[in-house]
C-alpha cells in the first residue's frame, strides 16, 4: 500500500515547479501551462485526501471535477485575452503588456 505522504510530496513538488514557471516565464501561454501544473497538483491533493482520510470518499473527487471544469474555462478565456493582446500589440509576452501597471 502506498502511503499518503507519497502523493502529498509529489503534489508539493509539482506545485513548486508550476510556481517557478509562473514567476519565471515571459510568454503568457507558458504561464498558462505552469498554472495547469499547479492546478493538477491541487487536484492530486484533493483526490488523495478523499481516498485516504475521508470516510465518505467522495467530496474531494467532486472538488477535483470542479477544478478541472474551471481550469478548462480559464484556459479558454485566457487564450481569448492573449489573442486580443497579440492582435493589438504583436506580442504575447506579459512584461510587454504592462499598460495597467501602476
Amino acid at each position, binding site marked *: 500500500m502506498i502511503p499518503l505522504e507519497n502523493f502529498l510530496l509529489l503534489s508539493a513538488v509539482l506545485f513548486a515547479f508550476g510556481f517557478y514557471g509562473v*514567476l519565471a*516565464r515571459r510568454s503568457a501561454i507558458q504561464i498558462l501551462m505552469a498554472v495547469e501544473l499547479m492546478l493538477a497538483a491541487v487536484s492530486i491533493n484533493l483526490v488523495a485526501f478523499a481516498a485516504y482520510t475521508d470516510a465518505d470518499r467522495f467530496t474531494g473527487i467532486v472538488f477535483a471535477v470542479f477544478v478541472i471544469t474551471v481550469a478548462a474555462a480559464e484556459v479558454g478565456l485566457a487564450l481569448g485575452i492573449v489573442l486580443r493582446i497579440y492582435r493589438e500589440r504583436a506580442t504575447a509576452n506579459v512584461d510587454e503588456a504592462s499598460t495597467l501597471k501602476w
Partner: protein
Amino acid sequence: MLNRLPIPAQFDRIIVVGATIAVLGALPIAAVLIALLLLDELTAPEVVFWAVAALIVAGALGTVLLPNIVHAAVSLVATLLGVAGIYLLLGSEFLALVQLLVYGGGVTILLLFGLMLTRAADDPVIADGAQKPFAFGVAALIGGIFVAAVLDANWSQTDAAAIGIRDIGQRLFRDYGVPFEIASLVLLVALIGAIAIARSDQPEPEAAEAEEVTT
C-alpha cells in the same frame, strides 16, 4: 528509414533526440524499479506509482525549463497523462477518464492553437524574464515549506478504496446538482466572454471582399 516518413525534415532530429533522451532517462528508473519488484522490496502498485511520479516530475521540469515553447507543450501533455495515472492509482477511474478527455483532448489543443495563432511557434525560443533567480528562490521556499509540513504532520489514514463511476454519477447529480449547474453556467459565460474578447472589431478583409462581389 526516417527519410521516407512523410514528416517535415526538422522533425527527424527532434524526434530522434527527444526519444533518445526520454529512453536514456527512463531506462535506469525502469531497471531499478523492476529489480526492486523482483526482490519483493516494492509491491506492484508502488512500482507503478514511482514510474508515474518520475514521468510527472520529468514532464513538469520540461514544461517550466525547456526554452522551446512547443516542446514545453508536449512535455505538459506527458505530465497531465501522468496525473491521470495517479488518479487511477487513487481508485477513481472517472477522474482519470475526465483528465484524459479534458486535458489530453481539449486543453492541449487549445494551448497549441494559442501557440500557432500568436506565432510563438515561428520564433519559439523565448527567454525567461530577468526575475528568474528570484522566482527560483521563492518556488524553492514554497516547495520546501510544503514538503516539511507534509513530513511533519501525522496523517490518520485508512486504506484507499475505489469509487465506482455509477456512485459518482448518482451522488454528483443528487447531492451536488446545484453546483454542477453553476459550473456549466461558468463554462458557458467563460466561452461567450472568450469569443467576445477575441473577436476583431473590423470585419475580415476576405469577408468584406466577398460582400462586394455578391453585391
